[in-house]
């Protein structure tokens, strides 16, 4: 079951490479959030209410519901075009995604003396997700699409923390939570502040600006 979820997560990256619609990327973020929740629950060996609530909050509430809803709302509110408007074609994006997969799994395979705590499949997909997020940020001019690239990258980092095993130093677990908080802050507070600072005519222009 765990492997199936990880593979579906990997397929969501391929889906992100061939879509031209912002709405589809939002759906991908929702799917990834739910899968991350599933992976975390499946990997839990000892049930603990507090950690269950924290994980549910981080993955289901923030990653799968709140942030995608907010991005969708921002797109609607600012009457933004629904296309991704990437600088590269879908073919190029897909070819690069394949290369990213090859690189990530080659890295996983080349690693000497694999520690028992690391899952190669999980690591490969996590690493590919981080690189895919960076690629979306670089290859897109639209601020909102770059934000989605950042969120995909954050999902990759979350997965990387899962692949690193359960005996992580406490500070790393704290860092994972803080990283999610930062992505929430960026996604929600800052854009909200920009929106509230300018009138309706200005706001879409700012949100469409190249970065």
């Amino acid at each position: 079951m765990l492997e199936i979820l990880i593979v579906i997560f990997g397929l969501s990256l391929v889906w992100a490479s061939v879509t031209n619609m912002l709405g589809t990327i939002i759906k991908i973020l929702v799917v990834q959030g739910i899968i991350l929740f599933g992976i975390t629950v499946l990997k839990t060996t000892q049930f603990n209410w507090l950690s269950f609530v924290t994980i549910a909050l981080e993955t289901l509430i923030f990653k799968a519901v709140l942030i995608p809803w907010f991005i969708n709302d921002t797109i609607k509110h600012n009457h933004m075009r629904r296309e991704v408007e990437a600088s590269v074609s879908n073919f190029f994006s897909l070819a690069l995604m394949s290369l990213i997969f090859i690189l990530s799994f080659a890295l996983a395979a080349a690693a000497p003396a694999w520690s028992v705590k690391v899952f190669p499949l999980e690591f490969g997909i996590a690493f590919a997700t981080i690189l895919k997020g960076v690629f979306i940020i670089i290859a897109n001019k639209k601020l909102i699409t770059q934000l989605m690239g950042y969120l995909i990258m954050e999902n990759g980092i979350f997965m990387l923390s899962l692949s690193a095993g359960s005996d992580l130093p406490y500070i790393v677990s704290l860092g994972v939570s803080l990283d999610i908080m930062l992505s929430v802050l960026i996604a929600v507070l800052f854009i909200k502040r920009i929106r509230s600072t300018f009138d309706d005519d200005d706001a879409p222009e700012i949100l469409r600006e190249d970065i």
Partner: protein
Amino acid sequence: MSAVLLFAFPILAIVLCLVSNSRRKIDILVVLHALLHSGLGLCAYIKRGSLMGMDDLGLFNFLILSVIYAAVAFYRLGHKDSSTLKNYRVHSIFLMIFVMAMDGAAMAKDLGLIWIFVEATTISSALLISYSNSKRSLEAAWKYLFICSVGIALAFAGILLLVIAQPEHATLLIAKIDLSTISPFWLKISFVFILIGFGTKMGLAPLHFWMPDAYSEAPAPILALLSGALLNIAFIPILRVDKLMRQSGMGDLVQELYLLLGILSVFTAAVFMLKTKDFKRLLAYSSIENMGLIMIAFGMGGMAYYAGYMHIVGHSLIKAAFFLTAGNALTIYNDKNYDNTGGLLQINRGSAWLWLISSAMLIGLPPSPLFTSKFLIAISLLKNGSYLYFGLLMLLLAVISWAIFNAGLKICLGDSERKKSLNVWLYLAPAGLLFIAALIGIFLPVMN
């Protein structure tokens, strides 16, 4: 006790700021925080290890921050802006939080904790950059927050890889990492991620995009802290992992990466400094250049390593003074385009001299500490037989020096009927920083 004081006082000051009803009282609280910071820094220097066992690298950065924060706190006494009391209060509160976050990053020895504190500096300083709430400042702050967050996320991936690199009992306490069992393969990849991640925060090319915009919009006192202290703080985690790399016999890779990023940063800065007319952007590119020089110094190793530290301290003090002086110029002209300025020597002699001295010291004329550091970097390049790097670097430094002096002469020379006087603190704060930089340049600690 001193560590408690270091964090408890600003928290108390923040509470007092919230109930304070005048700018003067808020300013005094910030000055008291800055003085306490300097006092504790001095005590920690005299009695090593007294401030939460801070090591030399942490103390070095803590002391630089102390000096610049003190100058900034006094500069604010004379700096007037049109913001409301509420905005000023929020600004001052975030200023203290920003300094606390930098203190934490300087003192922490756990890489995870350093990461958390560096992340805190990003959030607090983004709010400081967007202080004026104008469209441009919000865009600049957004760009800063976004690009640095991407960088910091990559650094976090690097930290996770460092955990993976340790097969047993993973820790992020640098001193406790067991180098005999660590996987060099993962350590290498981890270092690359950490270098790119925190390098973004340092403003190293090609990840420097946020810097010119953020520096162009942020208020002068914040710029002094951003350029003088924060860039060094972002370098701390790189240096800490650098130590692990060198001890694991991978120093060559570290040096090659530093040299590559360093020369690329100096090159990028030189190209853009020729194009820009905005004097705050010009200084931003100069920061990129100096971060590049620091990377080259650490990349060369040997005596250039010493030059690297010398360059950090020299650049921090001089650039902070320069940004404060640029704040004076902006108050006088209300325009950042230096083609629209001129005659500063007649309008405000004090600021004009500060500008010219800052320019001279920034390009490395004696008694600037940057003279020694650049000289040692050049010698190291020649000694190592890196003639191509040497030639390229000298050419780029000549271009950069020309750009800085060209702007300085356009601003300071020319005729003007106008006279404008400024509060005395607006001269004393940058002058103090330049004076300390000159003292360091003259009485250099003898190199071993």
